[in-house]
């Protein structure tokens, strides 16, 4: 573990420990009262989910066309993080929706496309796990196609009806609500970066050990 990763993890841990007080300081929302505060965890996890998906897609495309092993390691790490943060977003979302919309789940464009993207990354991990040798290429193709798929899922579901608050909510938040939000986003981002580099390093070591083992076997 490098010093940078240690520092990131340490700061993230401190920030997460402090986050209940920071969130508590934010004012109550007029119609939803206390419950809306799950949003301070929901939105950062959803953002990290998107970030992880983008990192996985870009790294997969790089791996596919340059065959750099390091890109593949980054793609695996990002895909696993996409599943973790996606799950967080998909669990905290319905908790918020139950209070805001009165139902746990709606077939809205954002919800559905997040769910499908989550499923694509679960499929990615299943493929990595059970695909056997050569599945790195396959899963890189899957991540690339999955990325290309998201706009289509979004448009096709959007043609029904969209309930989810628009992206324009964030810049218009009052300062007292914006501060804890950005605090939480920073904490999540630090955690994301630390986990990404840790997992990618682990994956690189694993492939190296595999290669060494194979060459030893052949010798």
């Amino acid at each position, binding site marked *: 573990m490098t010093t940078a990763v240690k520092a990131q993890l340490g700061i993230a841990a401190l920030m997460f420990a402090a986050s209940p007080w920071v969130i508590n300081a934010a004012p109550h929302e007029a119609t939803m009262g206390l419950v809306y505060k799950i949003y301070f965890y929901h939105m950062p996890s959803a953002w990290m989910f998107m970030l992880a998906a983008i990192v996985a897609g870009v790294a997969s495309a790089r791996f596919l066309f340059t065959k750099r092993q390091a890109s593949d390691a980054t793609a695996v790490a990002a895909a696993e993080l996409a599943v973790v943060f996606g799950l967080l977003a998909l669990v905290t979302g319905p908790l918020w929706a139950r209070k805001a919309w009165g139902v746990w789940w709606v077939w809205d464009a954002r919800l559905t496309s997040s769910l499908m993207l989550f499923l694509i990354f679960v499929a990615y991990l299943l493929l990595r796990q*059970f695909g056997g040798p050569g599945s790195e290429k*396959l899963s890189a193709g899957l991540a690339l*196609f999955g990325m290309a798929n998201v706009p*289509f*899922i979004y448009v*096709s579901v959007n043609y029904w009806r969209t309930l989810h608050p628009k992206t324009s909510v964030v810049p218009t938040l009052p300062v007292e609500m914006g501060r804890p939000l950005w605090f939480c986003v920073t904490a999540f981002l630090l955690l994301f970066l630390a986990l990404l580099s840790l997992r990618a390093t682990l994956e690189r070591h694993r492939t190296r050990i595999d290669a060494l083992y194979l060459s030893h076997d052949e010798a």
Partner: protein
Amino acid sequence: MKAFLRVAALVVRKDLTVEVRSLEVVSTTLFFAVTVVLIFAFGFVREGVPTDGVAAAILWITVAFSGTLALGRTFERERQADTLRALMLAPADRPALYAGKLVGMLLLMALVELILVPLVGLLFQAPIFRAPLRLAGLLAAGTLGFAAIGTLFAAMLVRARSRDVLLPVLLYPMTVPVMIAGVRGTAALFQPQPDAGMAQFWFALLVFFDVVFVTLALWTFEPLMTD
């Protein structure tokens, strides 16, 4: 360009010849599609009357299921004698090989749909002759999108373990836009007051999807299939 088309045509001819000699994939896929529709009929027909508006969904789900089966069988045949590797060793453009495989798959699925559509119309009282051209357009565009992704993934999975399970696991999340657009577009045609504008919108979305994914598949087939 000429060489590309020639290679693709040769691959299609080879696939058709193999298929005509055994009829293995066509007969099993067709039988499977009919049984799937019947199982849906047992679920959705109450007191002799089919539930409203399920015909479009049943049609597209059956297309997806039987398409998966056909993809699996077609490439399993290529795997058994390692003929896919032989095909890849041929001094030909890889994308042309993909195009040939895709056209073969499309012909096969078109044949199945030719039986499937009247069957769904018959059993679920769907007005399939109300706008036959629009329906055919939706089916053609949707099948192309499904087969474009399916052919690429099935070809890649030939070398993987547990490929039978992984094909649907990868294919269904990827083809969600095709399913939504196909089912919604067909439902717009089947409803009591057909909505041509709506069907047109979904058709356009499907065509756009096809263009993006066929291009992407042609572009990535080479690096994906190289060891």
